[in-house]
């Protein structure tokens, strides 16, 4: 299985700019990060004193209920919304803006609806003014890799949710970024499509050695995918637990070790979920 994947790998060439990249042990460093929204009195602390080190090639899931700041943290790493306090560095450099070294896959796909599948995937490369032949070759290879070749001239509106997310993944892979940020990418998909995309993602990850930060509120999904699960607390968002998943892949959700971990994580997450529900109740009470 591994060998077949390797052969396939030949189609995707490392971009020249990244060829000489120094692989560092700690690739993403989050130090003392706080994030507050709003002003003075009614400010909400979304993130409080987050410290994380993520290694090159690690698959990390951020897990927690709504409002725990997992997406806020991801957006801070992406450079969309800088932290109020603290520092985020990628390969030693401060994150100041979004950039193609940290490709993002959004839950709502965020494909450009006026571009076909092919044009969406090629867009990032066109921005970098790569030679046309290279753009063509890489786009073709990615369409094959994600089984999109029969849909190349379709517009996103004519694709299913699963297909759209494949295009979004291909669009990010085209950038050849070492890091992939994924914000509940499979949250809107049905269970079967979700599973097949999870498998696909694991295959791609193993093959291309990406570092992945994956936001989810599904405990099963996080155990199925991650090397490491960061459980976050509900408001303010802090790191509640940092769990390494030592189960061998492919992981079987019916096995005892899977279930033990699931029980443990469920107890952690549900406590936060209760606090979230309490707050919701209070808000409803205020409104009512």
């Amino acid at each position: 299985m591994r060998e077949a994947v390797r052969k396939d790998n030949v189609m995707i060439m490392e971009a020249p700019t990244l060829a000489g990249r120094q692989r560092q042990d700690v690739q993403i460093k989050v130090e003392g990060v706080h994030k507050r929204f709003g002003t003075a009195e009614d400010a909400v602390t979304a993130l409080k004193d987050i410290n994380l080190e993520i290694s090159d090639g690690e698959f990390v899931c951020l897990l927690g209920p709504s409002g725990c700041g997992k997406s806020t943290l991801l957006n801070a790493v992406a450079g969309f919304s800088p932290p109020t306090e603290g520092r985020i560095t990628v390969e030693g450099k401060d994150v100041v803006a979004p950039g193609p070294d940290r490709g993002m896959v959004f839950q709502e796909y965020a494909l450009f609806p006026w571009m076909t599948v092919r044009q969406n995937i090629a867009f990032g490369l066109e921005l970098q003014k790569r030679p046309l032949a290279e753009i063509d070759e890489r786009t073709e290879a990615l369409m094959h890799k994600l089984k999109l070749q029969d849909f190349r001239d379709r517009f996103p509106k004519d694709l299913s949710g699963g297909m759209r997310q494949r295009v979004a993944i291909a669009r990010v892979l085209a950038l050849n970024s070492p890091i992939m940020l994924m914000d509940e990418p499979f949250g809107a998909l049905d269970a079967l499509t979700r599973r097949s995309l999870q498998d696909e993602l694991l295959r791609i990850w193993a093959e291309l050695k990406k570092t992945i930060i994956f936001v989810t509120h599904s405990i099963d999904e996080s155990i199925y995918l991650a090397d490491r699960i960061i459980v976050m607390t509900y408001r303010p968002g802090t790191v509640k637990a940092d769990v390494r998943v030592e189960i061998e892949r492919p992981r079987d959700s019916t096995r005892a070790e899977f279930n033990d971990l699931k029980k443990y994580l469920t107890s952690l997450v549900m406590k936060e979920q209760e606090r979230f529900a309490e707050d919701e109740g209070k808000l409803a009470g205020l409104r009512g």
Partner: protein
Amino acid sequence: MSKRTLTEKGGRLFRATIIPIIVLVVWQAFSSAHILSPIILPGPLAVIQKWWAYLLPPLPRNPLTESWLSWALSGELPLDAFASFQRVIVGFLIGAGLALPLGLLMGANDKIYRLFNPLIEVLRPIPPIAYIPLAILWFGLGNPPAYFLISIGAFFPMLLNTIAGVRHVDGIYIRAARNLGVNQYQMFVRVILPAATPYILSGARIGMGTAFIVVIVAEMIAVNSGLGFRILEAREYFWSDKIIAGMFTIGFLGLGIDTVMTRINNHLLRWHRGIDA
């Protein structure tokens, strides 16, 4: 083609034509009963006769100086229709052509928006027709005042829609594009502009509709040709059949222009959801 689709087609044709046919029959019956004088309301047959005479070339073809085509189009109606059509197109291109860049600038840049918006808010509610006296003072008679009025009619819908289109680009596209590494120029040309096209094109369509209304009014006042001029001229001779024939021609020309605009829109927006086919 199966029998079934044939009957379906027949059914659709029947539903599309039944009301116009009833209206024509009742109208003809009413005028045949001689309740009203034909000067007040001529019957549809008289109108069609007049329309046909209006369409045909007035003189026999001179084979030495005329080609078949120019002869066939030398009737009063083709010449009028062409004159109106040409004014609409020129006026629309001037108005929309000025509105598009200004709208893009105002939509993209808040400072420019705040600078121009108060003036536009004041000018926008003035109907293009209200510019007629000034148009004639400034440009005299003839095509220039007509172009001026038509371009004002096309300008505001196009401007407002372009501004709205640029300002309402979904933030998710901006975020995705920044993540993929666009610079400011690429953001505008490859993301904001295409994302705004549904608004811009609907502005163009509304602008074209307004231009078409204004051309008829402008022709009644400033020029000696065109469909608007012709129906006003017909009134002076009490040619009611010609007035109505002219009105239907205006209707069909407007329908034709709108159909072409819709076709172009549908092609340019074939990526867009919820489009009417």
